[in-house]
C-alpha cells in the first residue's frame, strides 16, 4: 500500500496546475459570464497532450495512466469546471471507447484526429425521454445497402457544435432491447447532422451543451463502432470510466471552494477576530478538508482499479462519483455561507463554484443511478 504519486504523475499534475493558474484563471469569470467557449485554452491543452491522455502515442495520445488523467481533470476543475468537462468528455466518453472498441482504421483516422486535439469529441446517448433510463432509445439506425440511415434526436450533448466527432448510440434492432443498440461515429461534416441552440444552463456556462438532430443521416458501415448490438455494453463500460472523471471534477470544484474559504477565513474579520478564529468556521473548514481527502481517495482508488486487467470497478467508480459530487455540493454550499453576502455575489468566485457543482450529481449518471449501481453490487457480493 502506497499513497504517493510517482514523479511522472506529480510532473503532469504540476504542469497542468501551472497552466490553469496562468492561462485559464485570468479569463474564466468573463468567459463564464459571456458564455464564451474557451477555444484558445482547449487548443493550448491539445498542445500539452491533454485531450487523449490515455490513448497510445501511435493514435495521437499521450499514453498516460488513468491516475494522471484524473489528476489533470482535478486541477482543471479547480480553476474552471467548464474546461474540465470539455476535456473529460473528449477523453473519457469519446477517445476511450473508440480506442477500446474501434477498428484499426477508426483508430488511425478518427481517434488520432481527436486524441491529438485537432478535433473535440462528443458523446450522444441521452435523449429527451431517455436519460438515466438509457436503454429506452428512440433514435433509429436502419440498414441501407452497405451503410445505415440514422434518425432521431439526442439531448444534453456536451461539446455539441464544437466537436468534430460524435459517438452516437442508436437502435438497430428495437425488438432486442438493450442488445439492439449500436454505436456510430458521426462527423460534424456529415450531412443530416443539425445542432440545436445552446442550452441556457445554471453553470458550466462556457461549455457548450445542446441537442443534436440526426435527419436521414447516412453513414457507411466503416463508421459503426464495434458490432451491431454492442452499443449498450460500450456505453455502460464507457460510463464506468467517465464517472471517475466526473468524480475528479467534483474533487476539483470542492478544492476550489476549500481554498477560497481558507483564504477568506484568514482575512475577513468579524467581532474583532478573523473568521477562522471562530470555532464553528474553523470546524466547517476542517470538515471540508476531510471530505475532500475521502473523495480523493475513493476517486484515485477507482482510477487505479480501472486499469487492472479483468477487474470490474463499476461499484468503486459509482462510489467515487456519488461521494465526490455530493461532497462538492455540500462544500460549495458551505463556502457560499462562509463568504456571507459576498458568497451570493459574482464578485467572488464561490458563487460560480456553487452553480458548477450542481450538475455533477446529475450528469453521467445521477446520484440515484450511482446508488442503484452500488447497491446492486453490494447485494450481489454478499
Amino acid at each position, binding site marked *: 500500500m502506497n499513497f504517493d504519486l510517482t514523479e511522472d504523475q506529480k510532473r503532469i499534475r504540476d504542469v497542468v496546475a501551472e497552466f490553469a493558474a496562468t492561462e485559464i484563471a485570468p479569463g474564466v469569470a468573463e468567459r463564464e459570464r459571456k458564455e464564451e467557449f474557451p477555444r484558445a485554452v482547449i487548443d493550448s491543452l491539445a498542445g500539452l497532450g491533454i485531450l487523449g491522455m490515455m490513448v497510445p502515442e501511435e493514435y495521437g495520445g499521450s499514453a498516460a495512466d488513468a491516475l494522471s488523467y484524473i489528476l489533470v481533470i482535478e486541477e482543471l476543475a479547480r480553476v474552471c469546471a467548464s474546461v474540465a468537462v470539455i476535456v473529460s468528455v473528449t477523453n473519457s466518453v469519446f477517445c476511450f471507447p473508440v480506442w477500446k472498441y474501434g477498428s484499426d482504421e477508426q483508430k488511425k483516422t478518427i481517434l488520432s484526429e481527436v486524441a491529438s486535439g485537432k478535433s473535440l469529441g462528443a458523446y450522444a446517448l441521452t435523449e429527451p425521454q431517455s436519460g438515466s433510463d438509457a436503454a429506452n432509445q428512440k433514435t433509429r439506425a436502419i440498414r441501407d445497402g452497405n451503410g445505415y440511415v440514422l434518425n432521431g434526436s439526442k439531448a444534453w450533448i456536451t461539446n455539441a457544435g464544437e466537436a468534430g466527432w460524435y459517438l452516437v448510440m442508436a437502435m438497430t434492432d428495437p425488438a432486442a432491447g438493450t442488445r439492439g443498440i449500436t454505436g456510430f461515429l458521426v462527423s460534424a461534416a456529415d450531412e443530416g447532422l443539425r445542432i440545436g441552440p445552446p442550452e441556457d444552463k445554471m453553470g458550466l456556462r462556457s461549455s457548450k451543451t445542446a441537442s443534436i438532430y440526426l435527419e436521414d443521416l447516412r453513414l457507411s458501415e466503416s463508421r459503426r463502432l464495434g458490432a451491431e448490438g454492442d452499443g449498450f455494453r460500450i456505453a455502460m463500460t464507457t460510463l464506468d470510466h467517465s464517472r471517475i472523471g466526473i468524480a475528479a471534477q467534483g474533487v476539483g470544484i470542492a478544492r476550489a471552494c476549500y481554498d477560497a474559504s*481558507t483564504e477568506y477565513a484568514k482575512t475577513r474579520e468579524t467581532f474583532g477576530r478573523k473568521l477562522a478564529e471562530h*470555532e464553528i468556521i474553523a470546524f466547517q473548514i*476542517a470538515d471540508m478538508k476531510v471530505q475532500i481527502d475521502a473523495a480523493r*481517495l475513493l476517486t484515485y482508488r477507482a482510477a487505479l482499479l480501472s486499469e487492472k486487467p479483468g477487474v470490474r470497478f463499476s461499484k*468503486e467508480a459509482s462510489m467515487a462519483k456519488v*461521494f465526490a459530487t455530493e461532497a462538492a455540493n455540500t462544500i460549495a454550499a458551505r463556502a457560499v455561507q462562509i463568504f456571507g453576502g459576498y458568497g451570493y455575489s459574482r464578485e467572488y468566485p464561490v458563487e460560480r463554484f456553487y452553480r458548477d457543482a450542481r450538475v455533477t450529481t446529475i450528469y453521467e449518471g445521477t446520484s440515484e443511478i450511482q446508488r442503484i449501481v452500488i447497491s446492486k453490487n*453490494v447485494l450481489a457480493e*454478499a
Partner: protein
Amino acid sequence: MNFDLTEDQSLLQSAVREFAENVVRPRAAVIDQSGEFPKDLFHQAGQLGLAGVSVPVEHGGSGMDVVAYSIVIEEISRVCANLGVILSVNNSLVCDPIEKFGNADQKTRFLEPLAKGEKLGCFALTEPNAGSDAANQQTRAVSEGGHWKISGQKVFITCGSDADVCVLFAMTSPEKKSRGISAFLVDAASPGFDRSRHQVKLGVNASGTVEIFLTDVLVPAENMLGNEGDGFKIAMSTLDGGRIGIAAQAVGIATEAMEAAVRYAKARRAFGKAIAEFQVIRFYLADMATDVDAARLLTRRAAAVKDMTKKNGGRYGLEAAEAKLFAAEMAQRVTTKALQIHGGYGYTKEYPVERNFRDARITEIYEGTSEIHRLIIAREIFRDAGLAIG
C-alpha cells in the same frame, strides 16, 4: 500509488479473521453482557503476535508495518470491539511510546513482555478534570531518594482492571504547565496503586475501564519514560498513533453492522418481497458501503503515512485525525442505519447490530473527541497563519 495489500498483509488478514471468527466470536456477546475482561483472549492474541504488531522482532513484536496493525484492529473489532480496543491500547498507547521513547533497559524489562502479550498495558493520562484538556494534570510526582512518589487520580483507563504495566502521566513541575508533565512506566502491583471496579458503560463493556487511585506510589527513577518534562510530548505523539487504531476499530464495527444489514435485507420479507428489493433500503446499503470504504481508505492512508514517517521523519497527526474523525462518525451513521434496517429485531440483543450500535458510540469520544479532531485539523490548516484557532 497502490491501494493493494501486500502478500504479508493479506496473509495476516486471513489469519486474524480466522482467529476472530473461531476463537473470539463465540465470546463477543457473552463478555459484552457480563463485562468480564477477556484476558485469556488477549494472551492468545499475543501468541499470534497481535499484541505488538509493529514492534520490532528483537523487542518481542511481529515487526510488521502500521498498515498491518490497522488491519489487525479492524478484523478483531469486526467481531469484538472489546478485544479490538484492548489490543489497540496495548499496541498503540503502551508498546508504541516505549519503543519510541524508552531506553534499552526499559525495552527489555517492559516492552518485550508487553509486545508478546505476556503482560498487558494501560495508558493513564485522563483525569476527572483533564480529558481533552490533557495539559491540566493534577497527579503529582515528587522526586524522593532515587524514586518518584506519585499521588493522584486517573479515570476512564481502558484495560486498567487487568493491566500489569501502566504508562502513567504526572506533573513533575506544575509551574511549567504542559512542559512540567513526565511519563512513567509503573508496575500495577506497586503498593498504593489501587483500581476501582470496572465502570459499567453503554458499550465496549468488557474493556476493563476503571479509575486508578495513586497514593504515594514509589516508582524507581529509572522507570521514567523519556526525560523529565517530556510527558506531554510523549502523550500527544502517542495519541496520534492511537487514533489510527480507533479509526480501524470504527471501520471494523461498521463493516460488521453493514454486512449483517445486507444479509438481513436479503432474508427478511415484507409486503411480499425481500426488503432488499425496496429502493430506499438499497440506497441505505449503497451509502453505508461507500461510507465504510471511504473511512477504510483514510485509515490505511494514515497508517501508510505513519510508516513513511518511521523511515523518513515527518508528521502524520493530520492524517490520523482525519481518519479518526471520519471513521468514528461514519460508524455512527452506518450502525444507526444497520439497526434501522433490522427494525424491531435490531433493537434486541438477539441480533448483534444492537451491540455494534452501542460499541460504535465510544469511538467518537475516546482518544480525542470529534471536536478535538476538528480542532487539530483546523490548526493544521491554519498553521502558518498566526491565528488563535479554538
